[in-house]
């Protein structure tokens, strides 16, 4: 009873913050920007949040995180629209939606596809936030027993899981993570004041800012990559196929009956994929699609406009956004590129997410959680009538869009410290991203490793100091040993699973 009362109090504080006029406005801005980001191919939530970071310095943290939360949910939401109407997924997590969604549009059922995606996203987002609200405090209790060894092991788990689950081979994922860790060691060592890998450049003493890394790898890298591959993929992005919505944006009784179970399955799959480090929205949508096909009595219909094939994955990718906030808020350990950028945002405000933030800064944590409910409702209200306007966004010519992305990236990074040196680092990282993509190295593990690297080292050294320099501390403490074992399993399981069907 007491716990329930506590939850009520927290929620009241949260909604008080989320519904304050300024924050509500920021929420609306967030979901609008997020939807745009979701619609536009090549621009993702991680990139959008990192480009907005310098802009939000003037805003208080509660408002900033309401903005980011709305943007994150909005991006998951917006990806579906263009997948369904023009078979152009704005995000990787909406690729599965395009399969049956676009077929439905071709058959003149685009309206129903959009409706099941929108309502499914709303339901999934709401339930995921509900589960976030109930699960995170429980996890906080566990996290309070964590020592440095456990935190170290947890971060190793997060990194190897993301590396193992990324596209491409495990070796590539690990290489990407290690490059990120290496970038993270640049700058002055906090414990000893020793400069590392700065090569006499004063601009590197403070380390490479995470915003610089994300903007460099995601934004500049994306544009360079487009420039390098444009000639060979010409025409694929120009969007000749302009789908029309075709029919009213609503569901028939039969559609409802078929969508409900898919939404629920998608929500559950998505949420747990979100909580687990590394899995994330894309894996969630793949798994949800697969689950729907297995559960269906008419699996032959999949790929040819089955509404479950839209409802399940769309619910799953929205639910995973909620799920991924659980480890970020409760443990302070992100498990994906986007939440890594959000951790960087917390750090820029001098905040450290985790158990202490939960108990000390209730307004911030619960304001963010409450704002997620608000964002969900806003998305449903704003987007269903505006779908035609969102599709118009695809008319923005890609060259102009990407030129502007480079300009905004420069602006954001320059204003960080009023320093042109940082923009130079962004440039170099953009080239690095291009080379990494050429060799099939995923970028998300690199970003996560840059964010986690310094924390990883700090906890490692703390644990060693407490143990008097005895490295067995990581395997003799049961919780730490379990997490490290999980790390090994997480890295090897996808490889083994992949090998089986092949061989």
């Amino acid at each position, binding site marked *: 009873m007491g716990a329930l009362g506590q939850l009520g109090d927290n929620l009241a504080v949260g909604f008080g913050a989320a519904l304050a006029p300024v924050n509500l406005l920021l929420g609306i801005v967030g979901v609008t920007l997020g939807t745009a980001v979701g619609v536009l191919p090549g621009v993702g939530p991680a990139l959008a949040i990192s480009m907005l970071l310098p802009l939000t310095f003037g805003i208080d943290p509660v408002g900033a995180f309401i903005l980011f939360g709305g943007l994150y949910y909005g991006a998951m939401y917006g990806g579906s629209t263009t997948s369904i109407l023009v078979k152009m997924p704005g995000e990787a997590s909406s690729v599965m939606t395009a399969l049956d969604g676009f077929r439905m549009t071709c058959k003149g059922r685009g309206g129903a596809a959009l409706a099941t995606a929108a309502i499914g996203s709303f339901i999934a987002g709401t339930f995921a936030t509900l589960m976030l609200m109930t699960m995170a405090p429980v996890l906080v209790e566990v996290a309070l027993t964590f020592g440095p060894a456990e935190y170290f092991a947890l971060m190793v788990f997060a990194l190897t899981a993301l590396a193992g689950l990324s596209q491409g081979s495990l070796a590539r994922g690990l290489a990407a993570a290690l490059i990120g860790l290496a970038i993270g*060691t640049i700058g002055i060592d906090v414990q000893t004041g020793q400069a590392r890998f700065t090569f006499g450049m004063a601009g590197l003493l403070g380390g490479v800012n995470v915003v610089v890394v994300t903007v460099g790898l995601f934004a500049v890298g994306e544009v360079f990559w487009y420039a390098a591959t444009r000639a060979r993929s010409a025409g694929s992005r120009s969007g000749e196929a302009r789908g029309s919505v075709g029919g009213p944006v609503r569901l028939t009784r039969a559609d409802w009956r078929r969508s409900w179970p898919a939404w629920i399955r998608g929500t559950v799959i998505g949420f747990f994929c979100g909580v687990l480090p590394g899995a994330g929205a894309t894996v969630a949508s793949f798994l949800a699609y697969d689950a729907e096909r297995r559960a269906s009595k008419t699996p032959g219909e999949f790929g040819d406009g089955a509404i479950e094939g839209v409802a399940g994955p769309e619910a799953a990718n929205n639910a995973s956004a909620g799920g991924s906030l659980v480890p970020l808020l409760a443990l302070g350990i992100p498990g994906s590129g986007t939440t890594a950028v959000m951790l960087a945002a917390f750090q820029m405000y001098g905040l450290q997410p985790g158990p202490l933030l939960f108990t000390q800064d209730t307004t911030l944590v619960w304001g963010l959680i409450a704002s997620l409910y608000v964002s969900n409702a806003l998305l449903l209200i704003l987007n269903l009538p505006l779908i035609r306007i969102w599709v118009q966004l695809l008319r923005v010519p890609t060259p102009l869009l990407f030129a502007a992305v480079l300009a905004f990236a420069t602006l954001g990074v320059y204003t960080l410290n009023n320093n042109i040196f940082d923009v130079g680092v962004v440039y170099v990282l953009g080239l690095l991203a291009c080379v990494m993509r050429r060799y099939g190295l995923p970028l998300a593990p690199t970003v996560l490793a840059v964010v986690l690297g310094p924390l990883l080292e700090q906890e490692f050294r703390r644990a060693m100091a407490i143990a008097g320099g005895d490295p067995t501390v990581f395997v003799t403490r049961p919780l730490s040993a379990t997490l490290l074992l999980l790390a090994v399993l997480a890295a090897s399981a996808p490889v083994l699973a992949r090998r089986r069907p092949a061989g």
Partner: protein
Amino acid sequence: MARQEAASGARPGRHAGLGDRGLGAGLLAIGGGYLAAAFLISEPEGGYAAVGPRVFPVAIGIALVAVALWTAFRTRGGTGAPSSGTAEAQTAPAPASDAVPPAADWRAAAPSALLFLAYILLLEPLGYLLATAAFIALEARLLGSRRWRRDLLAALVVSVSVYALFSLLLGLRLPAGLLGGS
């Protein structure tokens, strides 16, 4: 450091026939260079801390070298093209972004990259407004746009409104450059 990484990785990128071998060589160069630099970090003497500033970077360097060797010498005949994450991925339509990277043409990207470098260098001397408007219009052209007048108009609108938003509303300092007056 980052500059080194990009440079050493880019060199094999110009040649054809990239695969696990090329990646392994690139990673080995990065890892080896990083490891060598890590050994240059001096450990403070008589430190009370159990682990000094050198240990962690050295561990990362060794791991990088190990992954590089693993990539270069594993028996599986990898072609370098990453396979999709799950079996289901193969049934997915080719997304607008690239699940399987198409072959990149570095020469096609060079003008864009050089223009961006010029923009960075000229941002402070020319000032934000001039440099940005010119950059957006030119870069859009390099990226394939063929409509000068529309691009120039869009570039002007974007740079003026961003400048106004930042310096008037948010009070952030952007380089004024030639238009600065003083």
